[in-house]
């Protein structure tokens, strides 16, 4: 799998990868009820998820009308 040449789609892919990493870490942490799992869930999983959401939201606000026209 390669990243798309389209900037918007590339950001969406990057956002998706970060979200998948965050959710995977959270899923693993949910398997074990231990203090370190709790911390990893919040700190590591939460950070990846937050970054993924930020990249997704940035991809929404950074779309340029010119680039949309050139895509179509």
């Amino acid at each position: 799998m390669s990243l798309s040449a389209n900037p918007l789609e590339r950001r969406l892919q990057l956002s998706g990868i970060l979200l998948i990493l965050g959710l995977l870490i959270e899923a693993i942490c949910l398997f074990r009820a231990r203090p370190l799992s709790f911390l990893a869930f919040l700190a590591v999983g939460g950070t990846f998820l937050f970054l993924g959401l930020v990249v997704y939201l940035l991809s929404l606000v950074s779309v340029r009308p010119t680039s949309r026209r050139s895509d179509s």
Partner: protein
Amino acid sequence: MPLATGLIIALVLISISLIGVFVVRPGITATQGGKVMAFLVLFFLPILCTGLGVSSELERSKTTKFCLSCHIMESYGQSLRVDDPTYLAAAHFQNHRVPAEEACYTCHANYAMFGSMKAKMAGLRHVYVYYFTKPPAPENIKLHEPYNNRECLHCHLGARSFEQGAVHTADPDLLPALKANKLSCVSSGCHEVVHNVGTLSKVKMWDGQP
């Protein structure tokens, strides 16, 4: 594993699969429907999963098993099984005066405003001390602040055994002092044997199930 946690993990795995579709085929966001789906999958679902996960983790962090999962707390777990009614923690645990599944949290949570949050913050500090500093020996662990009678009175206030107990009513000044937290329940010579983990090797243990 509790059913709720299993369902959350299932939802997380479904979300990962759906996000994977957008990673492999980002072009589907070109249509109106694709954009709506992208919002649901890349924004709404991850937040939902994390919210449910945090809620599940916070609930699990109240369990006795969670607290005793740190090696340093093992002797405190053993102290719940001392076969001696003068051991306050053991008497509460074995007689279901506190829920056996949440024994630590029930007595060590602060019942004032934001008490639950303060308990979580204290727990984070415990994790920090345990993993990043040299933790004290179990028998040398001290409370951050003197034990507040408020935590005892959360259950015992109004109870007949507390309000009309022979020792409690022998001195008319005793109950008001206890209720005002001027005289501690656990350090006044009355209920001062609580965990006493330093003496566990010398006492008999109860092998029943609470």
